[in-house]
């Protein structure tokens, strides 16, 4: 479906930005309300539901036993995929995975993979023969804007509560998946000419480029992605990076708190 970008919406976003306001009344770096629920789906070995404003996303973790790659006989594997199914918005249509859903899955995948929170050696069962394949599936049920941050949060929360189903595959006892750290994503969209944190659906529709930053526990960068048409300056990036550090720390605490329950 072709999205019509109303000129009026763009003008309104510009007018609001000039007054340091946002279309839903938030400040430039304010988030919408976020709620996180973990271990919420029967049959998934790890699961999480994130409600982020009008965005609703589930993530589920499944395990399979596979043969390791010949050049890495002692390493398991991790895969993170996303589906933007037509359930989530009028604009999504059925069919093979769209470029947007592939981008979403891969950006979340990179943040988790590159943070090193999963030790691939720990996923080895029998070197050269059997390793665990960990699969995180992100299921977007309602796209109300900023699906990237919600997907990243759901994915790491599902992973951190996952139990390796070793008994079902007859390779030992069930045990918690070892996850060292919580990579968290923070996303910014240019709306009305300036960057805002946690763009709403309208800000995405009437805005320009977006930047996704994934930070690890130590505050190191693990994945970056710039999407859509537009350019930004190094000083703009420095500003949003500082905001990202604070936002990621808050969300990491939320994950830790849910995990403790």
């Amino acid at each position, binding site marked *: 479906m072709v999205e019509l970008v109303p000129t009026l919406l763009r003008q309104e976003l510009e007018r609001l930005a000039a007054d340091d306001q946002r279309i839903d009344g938030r400040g430039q770096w304010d988030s919408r309300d976020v709620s996180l629920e973990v271990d919420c789906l*029967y049959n998934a070995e790890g699961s999480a539901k994130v409600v982020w404003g009008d965005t609703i996303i589930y993530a589920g973790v499944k395990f399979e036993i596979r043969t390791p790659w010949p050049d890495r006989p002692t390493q398991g594997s991790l895969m993170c995929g996303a589906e933007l*199914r037509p359930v989530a918005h009028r604009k999504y249509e059925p069919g093979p995975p769209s470029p947007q859903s592939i981008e979403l899955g891969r950006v979340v995948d990179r943040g988790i993979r590159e943070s090193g929170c999963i030790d691939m050696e720990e996923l080895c069962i029998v070197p050269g023969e059997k390793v665990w394949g960990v699969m995180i*599936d992100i299921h977007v049920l309602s796209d109300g804007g900023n699906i990237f941050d919600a997907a990243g949060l759901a994915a790491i929360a599902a992973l951190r509560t996952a139990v390796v189903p070793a008994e079902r595959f007859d390779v030992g006892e069930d045990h918690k998946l070892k996850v060292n750290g919580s990579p968290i994503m923070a996303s910014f969209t240019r709306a009305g000419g300036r960057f805002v944190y946690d763009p709403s659906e309208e800000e995405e529709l009437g805005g320009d480029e977006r930047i996704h930053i994934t930070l690890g526990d130590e505050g190191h960068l693990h994945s970056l992605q710039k999407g859509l048409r537009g350019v930004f300056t190094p000083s703009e990036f420095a500003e949003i990076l500082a905001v990202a550090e604070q936002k990621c720390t808050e969300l990491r605490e939320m994950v830790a708190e849910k995990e403790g329950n």
Partner: protein
Amino acid sequence: MGGYGDVKLLRDDGKRLDGRTVDEMRPVSIEAGVLPAADGSAMVTHGLNVAVAAVYGPMEAHPRKIQRQDRAVIDVRYNMAPFSTGDRIRPGFNRRSREISKVTAEALESVVLVERYPRSKIRVEIEILAAEAGTRCVGITAAAVALADAGIPMRDMIVGVASGKIEDTVVLDLDKAEDNYGQADLPVGILPNTGEIAFLQMDGDLSIEEFNLAMEYNFKAASEIHELMVDALKRRYERGDN
């Protein structure tokens, strides 16, 4: 139906493995208006099954060749999330989900007043987030509540329910083990006010008497679930957001 009678599914006291009596259904809860992006939506949990349905439209029907001059078409997609089952399901359509989508669409077209919206399309998306036997029925129930939540006129609600047979005994609402090792499964879509049937499938082995008893159980369950559906819609409007 998987195996036949080689697994014990009824206890010595005549109850089922999870403690239910033969004509008792699993606990059901329904919530309407759960997805902000959709025109109408619902979430139904039935035992350990979780189904979410979203409705979009009526909207322009495209491609044009699917248009009907005298009525709306209902475009249903039944989809199981990759993490909804024991072994992960590869994303995308398969033969099973295509068939279920087709017969579900035809069932919904039987209750929606499609003649009110010529040349248009109503999209119904059914997502199964957790599966524990009977997902097509849970999906139909969720779709009906979502259609009502979207304000689309219908001649009646439609309720998805199933009965079956285990150890030569007719039982209401098969769970996972009963579905895998039972002898028959009879999912139907019932219009609770008119008593008509808009969805019917069956596999396994049932005598005519057993079929009649299974249907009796189905009608009883449908009226129980119907009350929950109406209640969910009332709560939705008491809540009052959009």
